[in-house]
């Protein structure tokens, strides 16, 4: 049983790491679409094409490294709360700097409310990108060995 468990640790670590990567991209995308003028580089408004393209590219990359379809789907759904946490952390950065200008939960709610459409739309994009990556991985036998 212990051997079985230790064999699962690397797989769990891979799933967590890849979910963390997508979550980071998703959180950054949500923050950038909510406050594009605060980004580096700053823009007046975020480009949906760029945001969805970045999400798809990240999901595709993760798909190429995923163990299997189950892990890919798990990573996508695990990325959603991670993305929400990353977006919340970024939007709370003024609070961490000691500039308490509003209630922290208001900031989180504001950011997540603005980012909700992106969270919602990201699910099919991430799933499609991940599956596409897994299919290519199978086709070119990247993950066979």
């Amino acid at each position: 049983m212990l051997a079985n468990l230790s064999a699962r640790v690397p797989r769990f670590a891979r799933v967590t790491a890849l979910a963390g990567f997508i979550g980071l991209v998703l959180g950054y995308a949500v923050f950038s679409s909510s406050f594009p003028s605060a980004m580096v580089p700053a823009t007046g408004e975020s480009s949906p094409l760029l945001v969805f393209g970045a999400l798809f590219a990240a999901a595709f990359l993760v798909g190429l490294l995923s163990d299997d379809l189950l892990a890919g789907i798990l990573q996508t759904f695990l990325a959603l709360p991670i993305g929400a946490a990353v977006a919340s952390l970024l939007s709370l950065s003024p609070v961490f700097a000691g500039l308490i200008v509003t209630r922290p939960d208001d900031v989180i709610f504001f950011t997540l409310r603005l980012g909700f459409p992106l969270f919602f739309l990201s699910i099919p994009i991430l799933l499609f990108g991940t599956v596409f990556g897994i299919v290519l991985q199978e086709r070119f036998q990247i993950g066979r060995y």
Partner: protein
Amino acid sequence: MNDAGFDPRSTAKVVRRALWVVVCVAVILLVVFASLSAANFTSIVQAKASIYVVPRFTVTFAGIGSDSRVGPDGSVTVRVTAGVENPSSRGLHIYLVAFSGWIRDGPAEAGLNETRRLGDDRLTGTEGEMRFFRVFGTSSEPSLDPIPARGNQTFTFDFTMSAATDASRFAAVRNVTDFAVSKGGDAATVPWNQFLYLVFTIDGVPEANSPSAPNYLRDIRRIEREIGVNIAS
């Protein structure tokens, strides 16, 4: 290894390793950009929260005769001195200056001018309800020197009225000051109510231009400060 000397097992390992390197580089870049964005966002919020204005209003009358009354060729000038303190790390520009100035309308309060009594703006204070005649009400988008980051800048705005610029309003001002003189005072002792509205823009924060952009994206680069009481009805 196959006949051509190609080992698919080691190639797959190399490819996977390269992909992991790409993920790691992407994570590092994301963390760097996220940190810079958080710092940028923090500096914007700091600018919005910390900037403050130290105002000073001075009212002067020109053309006062020997009887202490303001003559028909006189004028009234309100000099607004706004010291802007900017403790933030962002440079600022003044985008909009709006000023309104009211003079306390003694004749209207005494029931000597029914039109103004009905039309004046009202302010409730310690003396009860007071009536104020609006002398100035103006706004402009001037090109002024920037306010440096972690610095300050003092701006002076003069608002002048005479019979040449607005005959009817200036006549009302003269009527008010004459009333004060008739009560033993002088033009300079008549109370005023001033309201200054300043809009600043934060340097380096682009504006959302599309018509469908939400309001908060337009407002994020702007800082509004109001000084005084706006009693306009």
